[in-house]
C-alpha cells in the first residue's frame, strides 16, 4: 500500500505482551488538515503518537511522517514535527523564556534569531508578561500555552498535540483551540490532535477518526460521521389515545421494524423520517387522537458515548488497557 498523506500508517500494530495497544491501524492524514484522533482513555492514541514520533518501535506495519520513516530517520521526523505530550512538563526552576531558550538551542536556533522568535511566540500565546517568571508559578493553562509556544518554536510542518485541553477550564480550552485553529488555517500546518473530548475538539477538526481499543472504527468529517452513525437507528416517539389500539395501528404500517413501550410513549424503530407521516395518516384513519410525535435524533455526544460504550461491552479487554496507563 502507498503512503499518500503527510502522516500515513499501514497496518501499524503495537503489542505489549498479550495486550494489543494498536491493532492494524491504517491512517492517512493530508497535508494542511486538522485531524482529530478521538477515543476513550487507553484506546492507544498516545502509543500511536509515540510511534509516529519514533519514540516507540512498532511491532509490525509501516509508517511515514513527512516522507520519513520514524523507525529509521527519527531525527528527521523530530526536526519537522512539533509534539506536545499530554501532561507536558517544563523545568520548574527555569523561567518560561529559559525553557523555550533550551528548546531553541536543541533545535539549533541561536542568538538574536532565537530571542526574537521566542519573544514573538510568547506574545502570541499571551505569556509575554509571565515570560520571566519561574514555570513553577504557572497555572495549568499557562503551562499548556507555553507548550504551544514550545512546539511552534522549531517551526514544524506537522504539529501533534496529545490531549491538549485536558484539565483546562472552558475558557482556557477555547483559547487553546483558537491557537490550534490558527496553526492549521493560517499557517497551513498539519495538525493531529488526540483527545477523548469530542465536543471540545470537533469545532476545530476538519476530519476525525474514532479510535477504540487500538482500532480506527470510523473516520471522516464530523457531519458525515454523525449522519452515518445515526442512519437507520432513528426512533419515533408517539403518544396517542386510546393506548390499547396504538400498538396494532402502528404495526400495521409497512416499514415498522419493532415497537417498545417507554413510559406513556411508544417507541417505534425503523426509518423514522419516512414512517412519521404514514403513521400519522394511519392513526387519523383510525380516528385516534395523536398528542405527540417526534423523531428522536442522536446528538454527537450521544453517538460518541454510544459508540464507545458499545465497543466496551463488546470488547471488555478495554479495562485492561486502561490499567496500563
Amino acid at each position: 500500500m502507498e503512503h499518500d498523506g503527510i502522516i500515513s500508517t499501514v497496518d501499524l500494530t503495537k503489542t505489549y505482551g498479550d495486550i494489543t495497544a494498536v491493532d492494524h491501524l491504517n491512517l492517512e492524514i493530508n497535508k494542511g488538515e486538522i485531524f482529530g484522533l478521538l477515543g476513550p482513555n487507553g484506546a492507544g492514541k498516545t502509543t500511536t503518537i509515540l510511534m509516529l514520533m519514533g519514540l516507540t518501535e512498532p511491532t509490525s506495519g509501516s509508517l511515514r511522517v513527512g516522507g520519513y520513516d520514524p523507525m529509521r530517520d527519527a531525527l528527521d521526523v523530530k526536526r519537522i514535527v512539533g509534539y506536545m505530550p499530554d501532561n507536558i512538563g517544563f523545568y520548574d526552576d527555569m523561567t518560561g523564556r529559559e525553557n523555550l531558550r533550551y528548546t531553541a538551542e536543541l533545535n539549533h536556533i541561536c542568538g538574536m534569531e532565537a530571542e526574537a522568535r521566542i519573544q514573538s511566540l510568547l506574545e502570541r500565546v499571551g505569556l509575554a508578561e509571565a515570560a520571566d517568571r519561574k514555570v513553577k508559578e504557572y497555572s495549568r493553562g499557562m503551562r499548556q500555552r507555553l507548550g504551544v509556544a514550545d512546539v511552534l518554536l522549531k517551526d514544524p510542518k506537522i504539529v501533534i498535540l496529545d490531549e491538549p485541553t485536558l484539565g483546562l477550564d472552558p475558557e482556557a480550552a477555547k483559547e487553546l483551540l483558537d491557537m490550534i485553529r490558527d496553526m492549521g488555517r493560517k499557517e497551513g500546518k498539519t495538525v493531529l490532535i488526540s483527545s477523548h473530548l469530542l465536543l471540545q475538539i470537533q469545532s476545530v477538526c476538519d476530519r476525525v477518526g474514532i479510535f477504540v481499543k487500538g482500532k480506527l472504527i470510523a473516520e471522516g468529517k464530523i457531519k458525515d460521521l454523525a449522519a452515518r452513525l445515526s442512519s437507520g437507528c432513528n426512533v419515533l416517539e408517539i403518544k396517542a389515545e386510546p393506548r390499547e389500539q396504538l400498538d396494532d395501528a402502528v404495526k400495521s404500517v409497512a416499514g415498522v421494524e419493532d415497537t417498545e413501550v417507554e413510559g406513556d410513549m411508544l417507541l417505534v424503530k425503523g426509518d423514522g423520517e419516512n414512517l412519521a407521516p404514514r403513521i400519522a395518516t394511519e392513526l387519523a384513519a383510525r380516528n385516534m387522537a395523536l398528542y405527540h410525535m417526534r423523531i428522536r435524533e442522536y446528538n454527537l455526544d450521544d453517538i460518541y458515548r454510544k459508540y464507545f460504550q458499545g465497543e466496551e461491552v463488546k470488547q471488555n479487554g478495554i479495562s485492561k488497557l486502561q490499567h496500563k496507563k
Partner: protein
Amino acid sequence: MASASSSIKNDEGIEKKAKHYTSANLATIFKKELADQFSSSRFTILFFLIMITGAVSFYAAVQNISGASAGDSEFVLVKIFTRAGNSLPPFTWFLSLLGPLVGLSMGFDAINGEQNRGTMSRLLSQPIYRDDVINGKFLARLAVLAIMTFALGGFVAGMGILLTGVAPSAEEIVRLLLYLALSIVYMAFWLVLSMLFSLLFRQTATSALGGIALWLLFSIFVPLLAGMVADAVFPVSDQSPAITQLYNIELKQGLARLSPATLYSEASVTLLSPDVRTLGPVLAEQASGAIMGFLPLGQSLLLIWPHLTGLIAATLIIFAATYTLFLRQEIRA
C-alpha cells in the same frame, strides 16, 4: 543510507547540518545540566557539609602536626589529609564517607526525575540523539564532581601550606593530585550507580533509597560480612597454625575488596601515606631486616594499581549498562 534518499525530498542543507550539530547538542545539554547542578540546593548543602568537615578536620590535623617532633617533618602536606586530630577523624575519612553521598545525590533523579516531571518526552521529541542526553547528564555531573573535589583539595592544601609554613615537594603534590583524581573516580562510581537506579526505578524516592542501601552495604556490611565468612571458613584460635591465620586474613581481605569502599580507602591510604609498604599481611620474617622508609611514588602506584583498575572498570561497566538501557527504554508519556 537512508538519509541519502530522504535528502532528495527535503532540502539538503538540513541534512548536512544535522551531522555537524550533534556535538552542539551534547554541549547544550551539558551546559544546562551543569547549571542545574550548581544551582540546586541539594548540591549546596552537601558541598558546605564537606567544606565544614574538611575545615574542622584540617584544623585538628594542623594542631596535631605542630606538636609533632622535628623528625616528623617529611610529607607534611599529605599528612594534613590523613592525620587525625585528638577527637576527630582525618579528612580522608570524611571524604570517603560523604563522597558517595555527593555522587548519589547528583544521580538518583537524573532520569526518573525528568520522566516524572514530564520533561523527558518533550526533550526526546527534539531532534537530538538519546546518547547526547545520557552523556551530557553524566559528563556534567562528572565535571561538577571534579570541580568540587579539586576546589576542596586545593583549599585544604593551600591552608595547610600557609599554616605549617612547610613547602611541599613535587612528589607530595603529585600524590595529592592522584588522591583527588581517585576520589573523583570513586564518587563517579556512586554517581553512575545512582543514575542506573534512576533508570530502573520510576520513583525518585526508590532510586535514592536503593543507592543509600547499597552504600551502607558496601561501606559497613561487606567488611563485617567478610570477617564473618573468613572466620567460618578458616576458624582461628590461639592454637591455629600460622597458615590458617594467613588464609583467614587473605580471604577476609579478598572479600572486603569486593566493596568499592574498601578499594577506595586502601588506595587513598597508600597514595597519601608513603610509609604504607604493603596492604596484605606481613610476616615477622619478612619484616625483619627491612629498612624503614618511604615508598617511592611509582611503587605506591604499583601497589594500588589493581584497586584503580577495579574502580574504573566498575564505573565504566555500570555506565555502559545505564547507557544501553537508556537507549532501549520505552518512552511512555
